């Protein structure tokens, strides 16, 4: 990997220019460069800043399918030491005062095969692993920190102009610059952008007893409260709360905050303590009206941001990566233009259905569960128990959680590009 220090303005050429070097953008870059496609990644932040513990306190659920894709690209061995397998998912309706409803849905991975549902990995470890893997790829150039000032695209090529006066010429530009994507806006692609009146409070706790790989999701009136098993007897807590109440919880002192956590957490893991700062993120759902344009493709949150209720946001982005990487690499090996219809049309068609489905399902789940209306509460308790008694429906939902439903890209099937 080449990296720029204080170089004079330069004219660079690549097959694909990726704007945004976050988790999705860097995974795509690694997949492409590893298969012989020349890639330039442009990011506003210094690479080391992204892997610092204070940059991103979140952890991600890496579904089985995403882990397969990361194996196919070759990144997985760097992540495995930091990955905590999810053997069991328990979903229950709860209330902080009344405790957890006795009717709950229990997913055991052994119902669908030997592999775990997925893994919980801290985002900072994912970012560090991607950086280390990218450093060994000769076809990958990371331009960071660098600001994009202009993007021009015509029928022959695309050109990204940088604040330092340099340019990157490429056949295809990929926008991986997140839900507030400037590339998407600049290209005039409209997006449906809804804010939930919810805020996600994220923190990591260490606990006395082992979690044994059990992930718990409680549906509380303010929003879902998830405990995700991490390495070293820790859990990542994703506590979704009403946006008007969240600031008060965030302002509490550590002891009072821990008391609030314990009321929701229960005592199944024994004593708990905070291991780091609390983070908060506003929640919303976003969906771009198109995933492609002339010499442009959107991936990850730039194309779609969904509610974290099912832990599918990054997985959806990684499935974009698996599909787009396969189409670009196949096209490259035929000598075809990376922005031809065999790439862009097929990408849009391939990804749109999957994404719309998950957006609707997660939005519906959140609306159904984030309230405290008596009859609805009873109905959903019965619903959860009902799903539990219907093995085929349960298996389908589990395979969906693992990401192994539908027409799968080679990487997701565990094959190399």
């Amino acid at each position, binding site marked *: 990997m080449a990296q720029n220090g204080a170089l004079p303005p330069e004219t660079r050429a690549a097959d694909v220019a990726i704007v945004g070097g976050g988790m999705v953008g860097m995974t795509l870059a690694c997949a492409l460069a590893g298969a*012989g496609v020349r890639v330039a990644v442009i990011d506003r932040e210094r690479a080391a800043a992204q892997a610092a513990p204070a940059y991103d306190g979140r952890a991600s659920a890496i579904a089985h399918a995403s882990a397969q894709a990361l194996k196919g690209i070759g990144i997985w061995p760097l992540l495995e030491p930091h990955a905590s397998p999810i053997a069991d998912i328990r979903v229950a309706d709860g209330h902080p005062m009344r405790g957890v409803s006795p009717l709950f849905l229990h997913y055991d991975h052994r119902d669908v095969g030997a592999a775990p549902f997925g893994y919980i990995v801290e985002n900072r470890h994912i970012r560090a692993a991607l950086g280390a893997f990218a450093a060994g790829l000769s076809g990958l150039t990371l331009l960071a920190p660098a600001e994009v000032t202009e993007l021009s695209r015509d*029928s*022959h*090529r695309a050109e990204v102009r940088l604040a330092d006066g340099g340019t990157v010429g490429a056949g295809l530009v990929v926008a991986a610059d997140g839900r507030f994507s400037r590339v998407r806006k600049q290209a005039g692609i409209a997006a449906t952008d809804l804010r939930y009146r919810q805020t996600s409070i994220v923190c990591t706790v260490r606990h006395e007893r082992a979690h044994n790989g059990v992930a718990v999701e409680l549906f509380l009136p303010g929003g879902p409260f998830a405990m995700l098993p991490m390495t070293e007897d820790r859990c990542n807590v994703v506590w979704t709360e009403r946006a008007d109440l969240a600031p008060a919880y965030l302002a509490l002192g550590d002891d009072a905050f821990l008391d609030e956590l314990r009321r929701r957490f229960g005592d199944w893991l024994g004593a708990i303590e905070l291991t780091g700062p609390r983070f908060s993120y506003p929640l919303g759902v976003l969906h771009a009206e198109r995933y492609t344009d002339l010499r442009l493709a959107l991936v990850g949150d730039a194309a779609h941001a969904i509610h974290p209720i099912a832990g599918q946001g990054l997985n959806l982005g990684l499935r974009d990566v698996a599909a787009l990487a396969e189409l670009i690499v*196949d*096209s490259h*090996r*035929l*000598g*075809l*233009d990376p922005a*031809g*219809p*065999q790439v862009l*049309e*097929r990408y849009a068609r391939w990804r749109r259905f999957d994404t719309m489905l998950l957006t609707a399902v997660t939005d519906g789940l959140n609306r159904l569960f984030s309230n405290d209306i008596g009859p609805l509460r009873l109905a959903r308790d019965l619903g959860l128990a009902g799903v539990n008694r219907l093995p085929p429906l349960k298996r389908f939902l589990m395979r969906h959680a693992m990401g192994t439903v539908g027409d799968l890209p080679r990487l997701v099937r565990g094959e190399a590009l």
Partner: protein
Amino acid sequence: MENEATRDRTVDDGEIAKFAAMAEEWWDPDGKFRPLHRLNPVRLEFLRDRIADRFGRDTRADRPLAGLTVLDVGCGGGLLCEPMARLGAAVTGIDAGAGNVEIARAHAEAMGLSIDYRFAAAADLSAAGRTFDVVLNMEVIEHVADRDAFLCDCARLVRPGGLMFLATLNRTPKAYLLAIVGAEYVLRWLPRGTHAWRRFVRPSEMAASLRRAGMTMTELAGIVYDPPKDGWKLAPHDLDVNYMAVAAKPGQD
């Protein structure tokens, strides 16, 4: 010789004018040549794999066709020449429509590719004694007036041990229905009058013409439309409409 092609007996004037009129549209993937753009991936995969087999190349390598010379006869706007050049081949493209050659040349330059385009007929190059590792003869023979003479000229351009690829339409009732009634009149994929059914070529006729030209047909493969992908796929045993053929020239490598 460079720009002054001698009009030879195998090229039909009416047919040339038809394609020159369409030249501007060559590179618009959603324009008149949309079907060719959709057909390109499956054709290129077939060409690349057979060439790699014959010349011992690794299809996953960077520029797998480096060091090979390729001639595209009837190159049109360069839809096959450009990918072949990106795969590393030294490519020459000839076309009997001067407009096509201009379009192809301008496009390759804009894409930063070096391709030797000439307004010439196969007979011009064979008269000059040129030979190539691979000669592409895709969707041309159904437009030439004298198929045997044309194929003899093309065969002379293949160096001993080299390959010629052909693609054309079979002269079957199904081809009439799909390629002319369907593609030109119903779906309007192609301008009306693009094809004349009586000039379509049966595989047996192609094999015989190739044999008379000193080449051996080694493979036939059909191409059929694949509706779920709005693309095309190989169908080794369905030669009823579109098909491709590989012919080898005996001799040393």
